[in-house]
């Protein structure tokens, strides 16, 4: 890693760029993302339309920049919600221990045995797809994973001497949780946050791609792939560019974690 100094900041820069686009996207978009341009359908890349046009003849670059708000925004809120809940439960389990720890661990472990896409599909079938449903569902799906990591790290920290000292001093459970255990596990928690964010982005995009995520007229990157899928057989760039935007985000986050926290492991 050290040898490739110039490459080190590319990944974080891409992440920061997409984070900025959640606010600035619609502002700096060259055209109105919903306006039909004076262009052909599925036009290729050109000077006027940098990333070509979509199945309605709308500017793809503008639509991708506007879609960042949904993909990055929803994923960020969901991941924060999942990580916050997982952190709280994991800390509580490690600090309280006993039957509480065991019951919670068993329940959340069982929840993991439902594949994430399945969980998403069942919820959308029951509740329909709306922004709050999507955010809460994505968060619920990834709480058990966050909880597992936090608990396993916290249990190790909780066994260290300074925690025993704090308990012996007569500090309460909350003090031990927040002031003694939490500050000593920020690294692993942040690295896990990045990984969860990637999974959330991929799941959200998949749901939208299936037409079960973000609903029209709003469109995230997964929806953009779906609405242009008709152009796939003729090789329209409008199909592949939003998918590449997703890949640029997930790979950049992945490399950023690698750069800051060392090697990563695990799959979806």
């Amino acid at each position, binding site marked *: 890693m050290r040898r490739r100094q110039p490459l080190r900041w590319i990944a974080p820069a891409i992440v920061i760029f997409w984070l900025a686009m959640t606010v600035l996207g619609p502002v700096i978009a060259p055209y109105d993302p919903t306006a039909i341009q004076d262009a052909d359908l599925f036009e290729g890349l050109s000077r006027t339309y940098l990333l070509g046009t979509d199945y309605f003849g709308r500017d793809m670059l503008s639509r991708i920049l506007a879609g960042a708000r949904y993909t990055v925004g929803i994923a960020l809120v969901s991941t924060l919600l999942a990580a916050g809940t997982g952190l709280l439960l994991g800390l509580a389990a490690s600090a309280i221990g006993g039957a509480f720890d065991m019951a919670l661990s068993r329940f959340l472990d*069982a*929840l993991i*045995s*439902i*594949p*994430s*896409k*399945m969980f998403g*599909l*069942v*919820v*959308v*079938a*029951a*509740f*329909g797809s709306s922004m709050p449903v999507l955010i809460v569902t994505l968060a619920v799906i990834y709480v058990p994973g966050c909880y597992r990591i936090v608990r396993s790290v916290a249990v190790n920290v909780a066994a260290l001497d300074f925690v025993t000292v704090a308990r012996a001093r007569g500090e309460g459970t909350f003090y031990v949780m927040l002031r003694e255990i939490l500050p000593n596990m920020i690294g692993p928690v942040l690295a896990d946050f990045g990984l969860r964010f*990637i999974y959330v982005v*991929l799941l959200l*995009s*998949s749901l939208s*791609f*299936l*037409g*079960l995520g973000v609903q029209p007229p709003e469109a995230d990157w*997964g929806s953009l*792939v779906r609405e242009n*899928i008709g152009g*796939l*057989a*003729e*090789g329209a760039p409008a*199909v*592949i560019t939003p*998918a*590449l935007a*997703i*890949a640029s985000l*997930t*790979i950049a986050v*992945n490399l950023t974690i690698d750069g800051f926290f060392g090697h990563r492991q695990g*799959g*979806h």
Partner: protein
Amino acid sequence: MNGLIGRLLLQRLIAAIATLWFVATAVFVITNLLPGDVAQELLGQSATPEAVAGLRKALGLDVPPLQRYFQWLGHLVQGDPGRSLVNQMPVAGLIGSRLGNSLLLAGITALVAVPVALLLGIAAAVWRGSVFDRIIGAGTILIVSVPEFLVASAAVLIFAVHLKWVPALSQLGRIDGIADVIRVFALPVFTLSCVIVAQMARMTRAALIDALSSSYVEMAVLKGASPGRIILTHALPNAVGPIANAIAFSLSFLLGGVIIVETIFNYPGIAKLMVDGVATRDLPLVQACAMLFCGAYLILVTLADIAAIVANPRLRHQ
């Protein structure tokens, strides 16, 4: 010793059945959690009161939730998940007509993906640190961090649009001979295989490297055994357990991939059936498909677990 393994296997089996029951309960709770009247919600505000009453009866909403839960569970165990809300057909029949297609797709994918993944994983482990190993490492991370539909659309763009080796989208229809099989299955199987191979090759590589770094392999090296002999007779037999674990675990990724692949290639399997069911909010159909997928997932994960236990005596004393 065999008694111990038998007892552990029984334990895993019971755990798997208990988990399946938990999953069934979770699916039931989620699909019955909607506040207010599900029937009204599903039919929309413009529905006539008679239609709403009919749907309430079809969904069994006139019985108390707990009783409904046991009825539903009982029917599910007997293999009768009810009738579709959309076309009134028995759900079991709808699934039955599609199950073969999905199994065929999954089977062909496994036949292609497993040997390729094992070869890549073993080669990467043997030439650890080489350029080949690094390409495999970067490639697998790349594939697991991008959405499946990117792999699928890239495959269509490359193999169908630019190289014109296969048609972009082809219907299942009639299959006459090997050419038709390739025409229909090439792109879906390629996409699914990419996802499985990435996962499986990584795990195989890790398992074999673990075996290669053990002291008995060092002993064999010192003794002057040839590299081929070291890998085939010393390292590989001891890595069979972890590799079997990797295969079963990686195949569980088929379930997520198949949903995207059947949709993008318009393949008439259960995953497509389920996605259509979700879009029309056909709850009995979605429940049944979800249970089928979760069951398959559990079987694969349990198999992976069992392979690990049988192969590694240290896991037997937990």
